């Protein structure tokens, strides 16, 4: 069942194993005997195809927030920084992502506690653009402008956020899954050529 959507079915090229009627018996202290799996042939041969595509170069910024009003209005601060980036770079041709640790970074919209954020937040800013230079500039804008965001009720006037570093950091290029499909084949081995060679040992 580990890392599988369903423990009863294992799909592969040529069919699947149906394990819904399996019996599991203790054979000895360290061994389980499993009987009853059924091989179910597929009507056509399909190979799994997975692939990812490069989105662009990436820089990362780190932003700390301790002001309670700013924390309560962090989405408005992020929107303000996005707007500054849009005014300078337009609204297309790059990506800006804001991940709010201390609120809902790990679960996103599935976080039941996202309405009660912690007393301090870390916002991770990711900028993705065609070149490293542009990614760095977009990231610097998307990060730095959170510092300058002005909310009406903030008491502090000398900077709305806290910077761990007064810079943004180069990261690995960004990729996204682009293919997660099956492809029909006539011969089960046609995508998997095999050959024998001398290892020379």
């Amino acid at each position, binding site marked *: 069942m580990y890392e599988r*959507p369903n423990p009863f079915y294992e799909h592969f090229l040529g069919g699947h194993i149906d394990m819904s009627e399996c019996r599991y018996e203790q054979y000895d202290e360290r061994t389980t005997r499993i009987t009853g799996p059924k091989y179910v042939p597929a009507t056509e041969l399909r190979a799994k195809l997975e692939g990812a595509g490069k989105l662009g170069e*990436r820089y990362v910024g780190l932003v700390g927030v301790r002001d309670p009003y700013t924390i309560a209005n962090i989405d408005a601060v992020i929107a303000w920084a996005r707007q500054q980036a849009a005014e300078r770079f337009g609204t297309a041709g790059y990506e800006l992502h804001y*991940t709010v640790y201390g609120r809902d970074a790990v679960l*996103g919209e*599935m976080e039941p*506690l996202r309405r009660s954020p912690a007393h301090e937040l870390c916002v991770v800013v990711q900028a993705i653009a065609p070149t490293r230079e542009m990614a760095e500039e977009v990231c610097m804008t998307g990060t730095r402008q959170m510092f300058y965001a002005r909310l009406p009720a903030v008491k502090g006037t000398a900077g709305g956020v806290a910077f761990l570093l007064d810079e943004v950091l180069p990261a690995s290029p960004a990729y*996204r*899954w682009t293919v997660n499909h099956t492809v029909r084949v006539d011969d089960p081995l046609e995508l998997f050529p095999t050959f024998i060679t001398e290892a020379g040992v």
Partner: protein
Amino acid sequence: MATRPLSDIAKTIRSKNAGVDKVTFDVIFAERAHYDLVRRSGVLSRAAVCRIFGISASRITDYVEFDPALAIKFTIMRSLTSGSPGDADTFGSQQYGPLLQIPVPID
């Protein structure tokens, strides 16, 4: 009604990727009585899972009570594929957090 948190009753509560676009959750019990108690209580039913995570029923692709392992297992579609920019849990390994404190009626 007396309750105990699910984390007191289950042996293992975990989440992990199942392919590039799904996360699967395993709640595994050491004792048959605990497995039966939790599945009969409905605190981990499809509807309960939707309530806990605020998702629609169509996001759940698989839901299985797996007797041989004394496990309740369900799988949901990710909102972002694994590792996409903005996804902050590349391996799906911390999505189980909200399950730990689920109160299980023990009467």
